[in-house]
């Protein structure tokens, strides 16, 4: 019995940090409507800076002062980030905001390694809370008790801040109706900046307070952000009480889940999240989300199938690509195969994002499931390569069918967070279920059969499948189903009113995208000869997002160009520098801020403008005025 009580208290102590970070995310979202992906990075930086300060300054004053100063320093950095970056993207689509703040996260990861080195850092114990308290033969660290008290205290302070101060009233008003608050003459810029600073302060404090409990390392940002996303999905974005209750719930589920499913404890959290989503899709304490806003200025011209000339041009490009083995060496052919595989992966996500309007932040899950499907079939069942390539992606299909069912119940930022959390769950299963997946060691020796083994043959295979995938997805875009999917994206209200079951259409699209991603993963397993949990990692999901964005999210198949450019650049970059994440993150931020239409989108806009100016005599606006005046 005592053991369970101690386990419960450990869970409560973990909840404190999680609550601090989640409440910060919620407060920022409430006012600015930005889901700050970089919140995990601020948490991590808070821990690193506090580590340095507490090592440098001795004594109780040095320790506690160091923690507070670290959080304040990060808040100051937050102010800078808000003024330089966020102010430029408040009116961008949610997807771009998530991506920009994710780019920031990538940059911080490399910076942290650059400054503090790659090794885990073990910090000091907290002065005054070094011992443990005996509880019927079980030890409870006294620092845990401190954290258990701290959580509700912070909740109370936040409550007072929002209920009793003028600033708090303004924040609550802005959370309800930003435009009205602006119309009442409140300086919105300053309000947004201060709210962001408070949110970052809470995140950094959460990170700094972890020092006595956990080693500081450069992977803690993603670990915490996934947990925080789960917390806010359960608790409801924008609700501080919700963040508190859900943080406790998730921490307790983690604490007891380990006892029930020692190998895959995260399953329990997932099940609870699934139940909450079905009963209350906007979270326990949240409010139903307003429909995602459309971007002014990013108007979309109606898509059309390729003309005959364009088709011929595409075939010509394909023939040139197919001639590569006659001029290139083995290394280049392997790079070519990898690019072809990433074209498949990118177009699958592009289909979901552009046609379906569903920006998945965890698309790598289905890529990885396809890869693991092949590896398991080849190694355990010993099936021939063709059978593996056909059946392996079915694992991606099944994963997409299960997760997609829940994900399409939501939209916008909730959809993004949920897909990310699902991907992380799949990753944890691959990582923790060692007896089947080999855990961190992966599954080795998945080599192609003789007919496909040579680099040129494998290149042709990948190229052929990539071309097929692009063509099939294009056909689907212009099929009745594709139109129904776009209709659901454009106007859920109207599509429901003409008999379209939007959720089922989106679910189907999710399954199609997941299956095609699984196909890419299946080929990837054979290309590398092995599979690892990283094949479903977050960075791979983000790679795909960047490819789509680089190509142009409002185009039909811009992702093809995006994948080729990005992957080639990436492979070259990794060979040139150790700081590839820093460069990549900066690149992502740059695209979002300066280049939101992407390569193909910019080209299309340019062509469209030329066509229009050459036929400006019959401007549609003008003629419609004349005709209606008759």
């Amino acid at each position: 019995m005592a053991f369970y009580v101690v386990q419960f208290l450990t869970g409560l102590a973990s909840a404190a940090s999680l609550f601090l970070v989640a409440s910060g995310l919620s407060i920022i979202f409430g006012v600015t409507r930005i889901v700050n992906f970089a919140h995990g990075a601020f948490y991590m930086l808070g821990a690193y800076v506090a580590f340095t300060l507490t090592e440098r300054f001795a004594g109780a004053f040095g320790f506690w002062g160091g923690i507070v100063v670290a959080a304040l320093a990060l808040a100051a950095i937050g102010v800078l980030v808000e003024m330089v970056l966020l102010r430029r993207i408040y009116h961008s689509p949610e997807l771009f905001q998530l991506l920009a703040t994710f780019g920031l996260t990538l940059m911080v990861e490399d910076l942290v390694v650059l400054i503090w080195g790659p090794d885990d850092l073990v910090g000091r114990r907290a002065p005054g809370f070094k011992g443990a308290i005996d509880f019927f033969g079980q030890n409870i660290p006294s620092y845990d008790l401190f954290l258990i008290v701290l959580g509700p205290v912070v909740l109370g302070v936040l409550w007072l801040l929002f209920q009793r101060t003028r600033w708090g009233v303004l924040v609550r008003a802005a959370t309800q109706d930003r435009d009205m608050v602006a119309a009442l003459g409140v300086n919105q810029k300053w309000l947004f900046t201060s709210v962001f600073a408070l949110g970052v302060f809470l995140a950094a404090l959460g990170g700094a307070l972890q020092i006595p409990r956990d080693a500081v390392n450069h992977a803690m940002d993603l670990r915490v952000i996934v947990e925080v996303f789960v917390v806010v999905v359960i608790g409801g974005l924008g609700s501080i009480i919700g963040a508190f209750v859900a943080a406790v719930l998730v921490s307790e589920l983690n604490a007891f889940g380990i006892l029930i499913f020692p190998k895959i404890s995260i399953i329990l959290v997932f099940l609870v999240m699934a139940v909450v989503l079905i009963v209350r899709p906007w979270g326990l304490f949240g409010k139903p989300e307003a429909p995602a806003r459309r971007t002014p200025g990013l108007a979309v011209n109606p898509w059309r199938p390729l003309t005959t000339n364009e088709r011929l041009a595409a075939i010509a490009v394909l023939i040139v690509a197919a001639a590569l083995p006659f001029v290139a060496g083995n290394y280049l052919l392997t790079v070519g195969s990898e690019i072809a595989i990433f074209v498949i992966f990118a177009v699958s996500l592009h289909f979901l994002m552009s046609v379906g309007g569903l920006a998945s932040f965890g698309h790598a899950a289905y890529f990885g499931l396809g890869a693991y499907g092949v590896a398991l079939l080849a190694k355990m069942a010993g099936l021939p390569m063709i059978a593996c390539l056909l059946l392996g992606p079915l694992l991606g299909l099944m994963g997409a069918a299960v997760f997609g069912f829940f994900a399409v119940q939501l939209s916008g930022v909730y959809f993004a967070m949920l897909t990310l959390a699902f991907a992380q769950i799949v990753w944890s299963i691959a990582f923790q279920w060692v007896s089947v997946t080999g855990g961190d060691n992966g599954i080795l020796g998945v080599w192609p059969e003789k007919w496909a083994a040579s680099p040129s043959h494998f290149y042709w295979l990948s190229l052929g499948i990539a071309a097929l995938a692009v063509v099939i997805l294009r056909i689907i875009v212009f099929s009745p189903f594709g139109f129904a999917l776009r209709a659901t994206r454009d106007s859920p209200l109207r599509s429901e009113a003409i008999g379209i079951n939007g959720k089922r259409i989106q679910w189907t699209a999710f399954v199609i995208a997941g299956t095609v991603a699984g196909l890419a993963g299946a080929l990837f397993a054979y290309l590398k000869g092995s599979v690892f949990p990283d094949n479903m990692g977050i960075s791979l999901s983000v790679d795909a997002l960047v490819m789509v964005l680089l190509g142009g999210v409002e185009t039909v198949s811009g992702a093809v160009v995006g994948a080729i450019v990005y992957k080639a650049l990436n492979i070259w970059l990794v060979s040139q520098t150790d700081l590839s994440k820093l460069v990549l993150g900066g690149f992502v931020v740059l695209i979002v801020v300066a280049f939101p239409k992407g390569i193909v989108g910019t080209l299309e806009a340019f062509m469209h403008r030329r066509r229009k100016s050459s036929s400006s005599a019959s401007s549609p606006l003008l003629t419609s005025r004349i005709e209606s005046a008759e």
Partner: protein
Amino acid sequence: MSMVPTLLSVEGLTKSYGGVHAVRGVSFELRAGEILALIGPNGAGKSTCFDMLNGQNIPDSGRIRVLGAETTGKKPRVIWRMGVGRTFQIAATFPTMTVRENVQVALVSHGGQLFNLWASTGRHARDEAGRLLDLVGMGAYAERPCGELAYGDVKRLELAIALANQPKLLLMDEPTAGMAPRERVELMRLTARIAREQSIGVLFTEHDMDVVFEHADRILVLNRGTLIAEGSPEEVRGNAQVRAIYLGEGLLYDARHREGASA
């Protein structure tokens, strides 16, 4: 008149929100080819009533039947499949498609082809889409991007979409809201003509009393959730209770009308 079948029958429709009766025991009928206006001051329960008819809101009690089949509490998409088309107060169309494609999507849905992954939508029911667009006077705009249309044209396009399933009943929520006076008259004349030709029943809510008295065959007046008057425009105009509620607007209409006649 008794030969014309009852299209829509509403019995004892009731909805309340935490003690506030938004709609209380509303009953009425609508016949094929008839144009029925649902009016009332702000907060009278028009929108609540309307949303229960189109499936966006579920009544606490009461029954709604379309051609004898129960639609109470069914989802909007199901009600559409039972032959009910609708337009929205703020026109809802698909801005990233061409005008023709907008109608084609509705035809695809009507034809049960939503999960067809292979065929070309561009060729699906092209001519039928063209006919519907001609019907609302949008044939010349078929290949235009919907996002570039003037708002009055968007409204006409929406009407074409709403007609794609050959509805028996058309529900129009403030059809002329946000339109210029000339466009209002045009849209309502168009609607009335289509309703007569295809013997479609039309139920619409409206704030503009000119539109209501000009185009409705019959008028229902809601106040505080209950039906207080029902009848022809003449009868409703003469109703003392309606006049009391609608004092300003009703008198305004008369005054303007007389002015026009003398000029």
